[in-house]
């Protein structure tokens, strides 16, 4: 019934009848885009070229903030820690989730209950969760030290030893985020036609061969998807740092977002904080772009 769709420009407006309705429907979103997301990205660039404490007028300083960041040891440490966090937590979190999803992808009684256990940490706030982990990691009668003590391993200062603190935070974050990836992988696994696996079995393919040549290739879209989510998420680490690195992060624990927070809202160095935000934006955008371009080489869409 194409005749029901009226010509769109009959009413004389360049938008047409539907177009004017669309404008109405989209008004909140367009305002939001302009003032809360796309607009502020541009504002970030402008503010990053100034020195501004919010109390006095902003002063144009050109690229000084960026130059200063490059020689600010705390910023460089924040970059290093964030990259460490990403490089360790993203692949490890995905690999564990993939293994779990494969194990959970079967019909046994009570499997739903087990899945819930894996998913529960996802819905609870990082603040509350980090508080529990702070207690588990405590060097004073903490559960982890008591547990490793059973195996004769001496107590560790999980949250104050500069070498151990980031891995400790990564471990907690993997524990918390596992459930999301597991669910995406499970959905991907359940979409794989069983006939394909059965046919391969008949042809004599073993369990490993089927996983390697059928399951994994067909799962690459899900792997791609969880990868992008984990990647973006890992550059936003803040809550767990705030709680676990009390009273304030050291050089071993500061992350980019904490650096932005501390300069913007503790020291009121708006120009400096936005310059760091801009660098965060560039890194995430570049990584996302590279990642998307890589998909032709390894992602198989059915």
């Amino acid at each position, binding site marked *: 019934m194409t005749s029901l769709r009226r010509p769109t420009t009959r009413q004389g407006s360049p938008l047409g009848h539907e177009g004017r309705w669309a404008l109405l429907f*989209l008004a909140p979103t367009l305002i939001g*885009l302009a003032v809360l*997301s796309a607009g502020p990205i541009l504002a970030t660039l402008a503010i990053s070229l100034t020195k501004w404490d919010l109390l006095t007028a902003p002063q144009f300083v050109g690229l000084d903030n960026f130059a200063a960041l490059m020689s600010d040891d705390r910023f460089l440490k924040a970059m290093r820690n964030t990259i460490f966090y990403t490089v360790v937590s993203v692949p490890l979190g995905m690999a564990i989730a993939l293994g779990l999803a494969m*194990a959970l992808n079967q019909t046994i009684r009570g499997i739903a209950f087990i899945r*819930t*256990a894996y998913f529960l940490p996802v819905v609870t706030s990082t603040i509350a969760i980090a508080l529990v982990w702070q207690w588990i990691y405590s060097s004073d009668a903490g559960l982890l030290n008591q547990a490793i003590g059973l195996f004769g391993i001496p107590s560790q200062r999980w949250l104050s030893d500069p070498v151990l603190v980031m891995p400790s935070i990564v471990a907690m974050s993997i524990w918390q985020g596992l459930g999301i990836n597991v669910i995406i992988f499970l959905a991907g696994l359940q979409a794989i036609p069983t006939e394909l696996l059965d046919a391969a079995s008949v042809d004599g393919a073993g369990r490993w061969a089927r996983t390697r040549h059928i399951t994994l290739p067909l799962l690459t879209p899900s792997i791609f998807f969880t990868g992008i989510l984990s990647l973006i998420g890992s550059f936003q680490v803040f809550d767990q740092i705030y709680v676990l690195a009390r009273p304030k992060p050291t050089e071993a624990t500061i992350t980019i977002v904490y650096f932005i927070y501390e300069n913007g809202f503790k020291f009121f160095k708006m120009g400096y904080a936005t310059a760091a*935000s801009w660098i965060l934006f560039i890194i995430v955008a570049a990584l996302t772009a590279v990642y998307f371009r890589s998909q032709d080489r390894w992602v198989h869409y059915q």
Partner: protein
Amino acid sequence: MSARTIRRTMLISLLVLGGFLMMVPFLWMISTSLKTRAEVFQVPPVLFPASPRWENYLDMWNALPFATFFLNSIKLATLNTVGQLISCSLAAYAFAALRFPFRGPLFGLLLVTLIIPAQVVLVPNFILYRLLPDPFSVSGNWIGTHEPLWVGAFLGGAFGTFLLRQFFLAIPGELADAARVDGANPWQIYRYIYMPLAKPALATLAIFTFMWSWNDFIDPIIYLRDLETFTLTAGLSLFQGQFVGKWPLLMAGALVSVIPMIVLFVIAQRHFVRGITMTGIKG
């Protein structure tokens, strides 16, 4: 027993063990919250306190205005949820069912904002809210009030719009065409055809928005100043700073703050799973 049965039994045992390990922090939270100060540091640790000390919850509840924090979190989560349901469904309907110039590029732009970390725009948003007047606030502007924490929800969002658009696209166009023949305008089609059919997707969005708002931490600590305005996450963080080492109280506070989300999850597990598999995002 065949090799297959043995392997299956081993796998299930491993999964159960793993599931138990996943639950350990929660069990430890509950256990610690009921301990006396002596029991907390007991070696080896006790899982079941000899006589559960329920007073810990009372002490925690009275140490800071937790009832107020609770109400604030509920208020903000509700406002955010309502705002997202309205604004995202409107935009999603336009993208799914209306034809207009620049529809594709505009939707693309919206999707791009999905990958921008929210923290990148923290400073400009703060400056914006500082410019907006509020005669009732101490600062004279929106800083220190709840407005920065919910008004934005009424201005759309990439996640919700994407989720609902996916759902709207699956609604057969003939339904809308038939309504149009009967003289229905786009608003009526949205209100009486698309919205009622989209209830499952709307439920998914509602639950996710509620969870994000409930668990949000960086925004409350940036915008809120007075104790009476604090949310549970902000309050909990303050509590942590004041009661260092008082684990039973801290664990009681943590547990009370996560219980609403756990209950919501258990009731609405289906919607959580759908939301993740349809768009795959958690904030």
